[in-house]
């Protein structure tokens, strides 16, 4: 049952073969057994989850069930959840009980999904390995000496270890796709503005986007049906007709034009990753797709552009964590500036401080034009590249990450190496495009490899179709670590 798809679970629930109380109870039991070894969850709240499950059972009994009613979903601890501790992976919010629900959380509540717990993450979503979490690193279920990726490492691990059928994540520079790839699951970052950012604790506002993480494209489509939609409380939320993201899943792929950026298949990519990605593309050709080489020349600028813009926004977004109104405050201080200094010195971890410093620097008088303005101009060029490429192809593919999961501690002392591991995913956020990762095999040390799919704006349904067809033909997405097969 832990390996069941959302559709299968939903079928069991609506056929009353199992109740949500039972289903939630089973997952909670598994979660409580496994979590100490993986550290995927920061907070669980069994009683509250079971209350929600009971309410879901009532909804089902009353014939008001939605496809996700009664199904456990884990929430990344970046989403404010009423009555739940919401930490964002930081000591700064270690005592913060949110008085309100994020739009995403509200949407899951409305359809009667069950919140099974809050997942671990890099502190304020800043990291690619989940090692910056104040609550300790998350372990990769395929190899506990490896990182799960980040920042949504807890969600990726929880789905990969089948502690939850599905989870939410957020993606600022790859934080859904990279951990999905490293943990062998599927994840999609929608077009910027599709999922409301209200109640999603901001890292870099112009790049942050919430999205689902699950075992398969089909599950992602069902999750996205709940998460996407206009929200008046988010001025960057897009006002569009609601879509059914499952609508194109079964479309055949004959005639699909896959763009392969020549800049993606270069020496930085490890052989094991390249092999798996090429095999996946070969599979697509078998499914009727054609490939065309495209070029994204400005993509090489993505990492430097990102590490100007994201820290700039973050330095301002994180100013509210000042110890005045909520969250952590240093116990001893002599005056106001001492309180600020100590609170922020003690409440934030090293990576967060590093990015606040970078961001403060690039916004400073005399540097703003040279860094921030320049980066904004390059950002437009990067987006322009994609627009040009999509004139030649329907979807772009490449590796999600240049390597498989690296070892815990391997890159944590070398931030630049860590930043480069997101080289492929970052450009997508800068362009505001939808991006996705699906498992396509294994590389070194039998660690998973992810295929990166980049779609045009609002092409989510098409991307899910492309991923689903592959998953119909292969079984990488249903594999799970041997030690977890119970």
């Amino acid at each position, binding site marked *: 049952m832990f390996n069941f798809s959302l559709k299968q679970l939903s079928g069991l629930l609506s056929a009353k073969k199992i109740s949500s109380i039972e289903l939630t109870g089973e997952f909670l039991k598994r979660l409580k057994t496994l979590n100490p070894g993986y550290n995927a969850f920061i907070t669980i709240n069994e009683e509250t989850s079971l209350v929600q499950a009971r309410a879901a059972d009532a909804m089902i009994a009353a014939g008001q069930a939605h496809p996700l009613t009664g199904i456990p979903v884990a929430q990344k601890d970046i989403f404010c959840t009423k009555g739940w501790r919401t930490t964002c992976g930081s000591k700064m919010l270690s005592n913060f009980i949110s008085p309100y629900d*994020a739009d995403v959380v509200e949407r899951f509540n409305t359809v009667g999904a069950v919140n099974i717990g809050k997942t671990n993450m890099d502190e304020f979503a800043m990291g690619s390995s989940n090692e910056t979490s104040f609550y300790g690193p998350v372990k990769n279920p395929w190899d506990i000496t490896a990182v799960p990726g980040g920042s949504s490492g807890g969600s990726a691990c929880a789905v990969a270890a089948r502690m939850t059928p599905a989870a939410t994540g957020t993606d600022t520079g790859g934080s859904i796709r990279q951990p999905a790839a490293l943990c062998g699951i599927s994840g999609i970052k929608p077009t910027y503005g599709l999922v409301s*950012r209200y109640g999603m*604790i901001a890292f870099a506002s112009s790049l942050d986007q919430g999205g689902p993480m699950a075992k398969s494209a089909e599950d992602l489509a069902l999750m996205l049906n709940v998460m996407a939609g206009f929200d008046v409380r988010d001025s960057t939320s897009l006002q569009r007709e609601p879509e059914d993201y499952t609508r194109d899943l079964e479309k055949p792929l004959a005639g699909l034009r896959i763009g392969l950026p020549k800049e993606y298949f270069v020496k930085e990519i490890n052989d094991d990753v390249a092999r798996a990605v090429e095999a996946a593309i070969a599979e697509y050709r078998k499914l009727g797709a054609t490939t065309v080489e495209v070029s994204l020349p400005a993509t090489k600028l993505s990492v430097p552009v990102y590490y100007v813009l994201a820290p700039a926004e973050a330095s*301002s977004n994180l100013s509210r964590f000042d110890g005045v*109104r909520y969250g952590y405050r240093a116990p001893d201080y002599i005056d106001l500036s001492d309180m600020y200094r100590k609170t922020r010195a003690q409440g934030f971890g090293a990576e967060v401080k590093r990015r606040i410093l970078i961001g403060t620097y690039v916004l400073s008088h005399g540097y703003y034009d040279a860094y921030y303005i320049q980066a904004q101009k390059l950002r437009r060029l990067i987006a322009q590249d994609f627009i040009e490429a999509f004139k030649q192809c329907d979807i772009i593919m490449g590796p999600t990450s240049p390597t498989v999961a690296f070892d815990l501690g391997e890159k944590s002392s070398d931030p630049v190496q860590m930043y480069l591991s997101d080289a492929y995913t970052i450009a997508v956020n800068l362009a505001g495009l939808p991006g996705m990762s699906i498992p396509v095999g294994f590389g070194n040390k039998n660690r998973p490899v992810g295929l990166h799919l980049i779609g045009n704006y609002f092409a989510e349904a098409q991307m899910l179709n492309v991923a689903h067809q592959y998953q119909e033909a292969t079984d990488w997405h249903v594999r799970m670590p041997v030690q977890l097969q119970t």
Partner: protein
Amino acid sequence: MQWEIVIGLEVHTQLSTQSKIFSGGSTAFGAVPNTQACAVDLALPGVLPVLNRGAVERAIKLGLAVGGKINSPSVFARKNYFYPDLPKGYQISQYELPVIDGGSVKIQVGHDGTECEKTIRLTRAHLEEDAGKSLHDDFHGMTGIDLNRAGTPLLEIVSEPDMRSSAEAVAYAKTLHSLVRWIGICDGNMQEGSFRCDANVSVRPFGSDKLGTRCEIKNLNSFRFLEKAINYEARRQIEIIEDGGTIQQQTRLYDSERDETRAMRSKEDAQDYRYFPDPDLLPLEISLQWVAKIKAAMPELPMHRRYRFMAADAAGLAALLQEHSSVAFEAGLDVPVGRDFYQLSAYDAAMLTADKDTADYFEQVMEVIGGKNAKLCANWVMGEVTSRLNRDDKDITASPVSAGQLAGLLLHINNGTISGKIAKEVFDAMWLGEYGGDAETIIKTKGLKQISDEGQIEKLVDEILSANPQQVADYRNGKEKAFNSLIGQVMKVSKGKANPAQVNEILKKKLME
């Protein structure tokens, strides 16, 4: 040496919206601390700003009223600094692209025959949010934070350094104060901080065209403090320069109790606010249709109304507008214009249109009395009504004598039922609310009707003449003074009711006999 004072003002007007500029929190003043701060105002993790349309609409109104350029798009930027009453650690304001650029305001300067008009150019006006308040008393060494005010919409209106005296600065501030209330974008309540001025003051040798180093005096919340602070500051700067010193660019605070300004911070410790466009808010687009809709609903502007009060007809108004080339005229603002003309003096027209409520009151009275004798009506509104309102510290909208009631009184003056003197007595009774404040009833009940019956007045005159043979003789011997005394006595026995003109005439006639 002769010194010239150069002043520019930055005025923060609190916009009269029900809710805050980026949240649904209430803007009502005086609530229990922190009861009007919602999740967005408190800057809880994850919350986002959503722009209040009403605040933008008010900014557009100001732009139209001053003939400024309404920018589309304009951009909201974050001004980053740490302070406990600034919940997000940044203020959302506008920096490089404000909602309004340029425009101007005309003020009346000089007095006693030297009155003239002066144009004060505006640099810009931008939308921003207010901060909360830090309360330092009553917390035993700690600071209390009240975030009720956090997120209140402000329109900061920045002038060019076009003023040359504290009197001009006050005239500008008053004109702007009247304008923002007139167009209904700000309640103008200075005690509650709805209208706050910062003054940039510098001095230079008369005739120089180079600006001196300026000091900014913060948070002047009354016209009197504005005037005194500028006077003090100019004196201070002149003394420093005359003593061979130089002015340091500073931000200063005015201490009203000691009537002096004090340094708050100097340019060296000026903060780097690290402005950048707020990624949570899209650039603000203002469509021409929206502007047109707001334009159509604008009230007649003060300038228009003033010249209409002076003009005899539409052609006269057009000529006056052209002559003074008012901002609204230049902008081709086709706001609705009232139809009535009063031919008042420039002074009367300016006084009556100093605020919209007074102008409305005047026109309501004129409407009831059929548009006749505007000068009399103007005198009453500016004289009796205004002085009593000032005495009782009341607003004209709360006047105990309504426009309709005053009209009732003026009708009796116009048709000669009562004299001007008696009218004041009647007005006193009306002010106190006697007989429901109805002039007619008061005149009847108190028997104050003017005696205009010739026979009756002749009788009174005869009485006085026969009782005062000596004064009659004096008058006939050329002592003019005696005449006034006789008139006074006739008026006295009539209890002031005799028609003074008739008394004058009849007395003269009798004395000639």
